[in-house]
């Protein structure tokens, strides 16, 4: 190899943001005064200096080919002053310095197939993970699930007609790279891993696999004279945590890796403290390419929320107000023993009072 190829990395770390920021943002950095939302998908921020900026937010498919990105760049150059930013939910934001520029920009985005919305009390883009496309441990896909659901819930992205913002996440295995969310669609395995004993000896560091199991269900064992692992199937909670460090612990199963729906996760500190999401339904089939059972249930829950919650109530806050018995009644979901927490500290979630709604 030539000298030139042996380039040393410049450990430059995180680049400076100001070089890429829209100049109006840089100029009024830290000096913004207030904002409003002229229409779904558009934010209007006013600085103390009197400067104003309009932001148009559009949905993307996140996993984009470079042509799509270039197309977005062209739109930015032609309609939006050459700057963009992305949100935590893979939406793209175009900033413009004049109100008149907003409509043409939206027109163009719509024309090119990018939905404008995701602001305020809408349902924004779903937190996206890897799934079958790239991950080594998925039980389901991510891009496809997100696409299917966003198709179904498109109207909730482009309108602001929910009681408050709705944040959805999906996770393609029980590791849950998708975050806590108002509604989370997660994998829930239902059978212990099948061990491919032939491979364990070669690819797995046994002590570290043993250490990963949250319920200590794995023991080192000799199988057919070869060092392998053994799972106490009665103890195993089918979490799949042993699979990433040891792929021979085959947890994924076309039939028995199911989907579950969790609701009421909340990250913000607005009004109530942040909360974890709670299990409401499991056992849903993993049904590509459009996961209709999941979509139907998510829509049902959203519909109940939309009809019944007060303005500003997040999904979890709504249920806290009406009570969980009422939630199960309204959504017609069965309540089972699995809904009762049995993990550590679980007793904190039991009803230790006579506060009951009849």
């Amino acid at each position, binding site marked *: 190899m030539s000298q030139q190829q042996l380039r040393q990395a410049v450990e430059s770390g995180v680049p400076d943001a100001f070089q890429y920021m829209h100049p109006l943002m840089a100029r009024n950095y830290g000096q913004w005064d207030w904002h409003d939302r002229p229409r779904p998908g558009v934010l209007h921020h006013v600085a103390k200096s009197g400067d104003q900026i309009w932001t148009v937010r559009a949905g993307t498919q996140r996993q984009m080919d470079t042509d799509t990105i270039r197309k977005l760049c062209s739109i930015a150059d032609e309609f939006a002053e050459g700057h963009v930013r992305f949100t935590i939910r893979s939406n793209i934001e175009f900033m413009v310095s004049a109100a008149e520029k907003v409509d043409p920009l939206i027109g163009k985005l719509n024309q090119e197939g990018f939905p404008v919305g995701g602001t305020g009390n809408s349902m924004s883009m779903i937190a996206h993970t890897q799934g079958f496309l790239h991950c080594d441990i998925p039980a389901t896909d991510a891009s496809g699930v997100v696409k299917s659901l966003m198709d179904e819930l498109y109207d909730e992205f482009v309108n602001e007609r929910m009681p408050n913002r709705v944040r959805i996440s999906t996770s393609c295995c*029980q590791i*849950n790279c998708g975050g806590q969310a108002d509604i989370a669609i*997660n994998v*829930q395995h*239902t*059978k212990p891993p099948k061990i491919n004993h032939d491979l364990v000896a070669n690819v797995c560091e046994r002590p570290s696999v043993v250490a990963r199991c*949250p*319920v200590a269900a794995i023991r080192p064992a000799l199988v057919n004279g070869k060092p392998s692992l053994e799972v106490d199937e009665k103890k*195993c*909670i*089918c*979490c799949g945590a042993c699979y990433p460090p040891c792929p021979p612990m085959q947890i994924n199963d076309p039939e*028995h890796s*199911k989907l*579950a729906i*969790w609701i*009421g996760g909340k990250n913000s500190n607005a009004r109530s403290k942040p909360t*974890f*999401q*709670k*299990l*409401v339904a*499991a*056992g849903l089939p993993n049904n590509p390419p459009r996961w209709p059972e999941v979509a139907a249930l998510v829509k049902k829950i959203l519909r109940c929320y939309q009809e019944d919650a007060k303005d500003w109530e997040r999904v979890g806050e709504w249920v*806290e*107000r*009406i*009570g*969980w*018995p*009422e*939630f*199960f009644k309204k959504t017609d979901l*069965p*309540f*089972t*023993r*699995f*809904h*009762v*927490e*049995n*993990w*550590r500290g*679980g*007793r*904190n*979630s*039991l*009803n*230790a*009072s*006579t*506060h*009951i*709604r*009849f």
Partner: protein
Amino acid sequence: MAKQHDTPNLDQLESGPWPSFVTGLKRLAERSDMIGDVLGQLEYSYQTRKGYWKGGTISVRGYGGGIIPRFSEVTDRFPDAAEFHTLRVMPAPGMHYDTGILRKLCDIWDRNGSGLLALHGQSGDMMFQGARSDQVQQAFDEINELGFDLGGAGPSVRTSMSCVGAARCEHSCYSEAVAHRKVMNAFVDDLHRPALPYKFKFKFSGCPNDCMNSIQRADMAVIGTWRDDIQVKQEEVGEFIKAKGRQYVIDNVVARCPTSCITLKDDDTLDIDNRNCVRCMHCINVMTKALSPGNDKGVTILVGGKRTLKIGDLFGTVIVPFKKLETEEDYDSLVELAGTIIDFWAENGLEHERCGEMIDRIGLTNFLEAIGLGVDPAMIAHPRTSSYVRTDKWEEEAEKWRMRHAESAG
């Protein structure tokens, strides 16, 4: 004849406005050498800041429990305090007495014990404190003749308590006195012959005010509640507002409702969204004349409350959200449920493990399954947040729910 020790510390407890137990003990010491030496030992404890009693085994014929035996460790100094046992005796529900019966009990105790009587212990017993071993049987026999029986001690069903309830309280949602007696008297064997993993306490409160502290102190708490709407007398609401003002009602009733389901309307009437009411009692407590519990009354049952040992304090947890308690069959099924719980715990609890600790160990749902109750969202504050659960049987369990609901709907 009075046995006298110097008690400089205790003497200080004779002053002050609150009735002094020391004065009572000194009075007894004049006729009881035992109490004389007990006072001496108590003073000695105050000076050394240590206790000097040890336990032992004493009981009455046919019973295993009910007596707390105490032997002094400092008999060299206080020989007459050598034995100082307590008889735990169960009063009537609600701790009602007429003076005749109280006097008879005093007479028995003066004859067969120290004359020191605690009304009542934290579990609700009359505690006849201060019998020598040779007095215990006779004292018991005479008390028993009056219609009283020993309470619990040791690993057994324990003495129970019920609030004054229906006898005098307008909040009462069931007959505490009847339920208390029916349940307890179904378990006299488990009460008198300690053979359970540990103690088991029932407590009965007539409404969610829980004047018996049952959620935190009873293995099985039976608490009154109702299913229909709060009864509102709107004329009385008006009177209340006239007397106290609108602001008072807003600040002390409307603003304090935990589910914000009660509102004061412009025409000075109260409006309650009863589906959202959690029966906390607060509004009823404030407006005793205008508001009352509904008509469709019953009880909520919680299990597993207790104090500290060994895994930390436990609240009871709802296992029966609502149960009518009116007919004989209702009472029978309450007794049956209690029996099922005690039996299961007797077989599955570890030594010195309370029912609540066992439930914590095996999980509420396994417990419910074992005693034949279905799960219900009223039993939880919220569903699980941990994904560490095995859901193989989801459909099966969902089906159980659907069946139960079809039944109760049909």
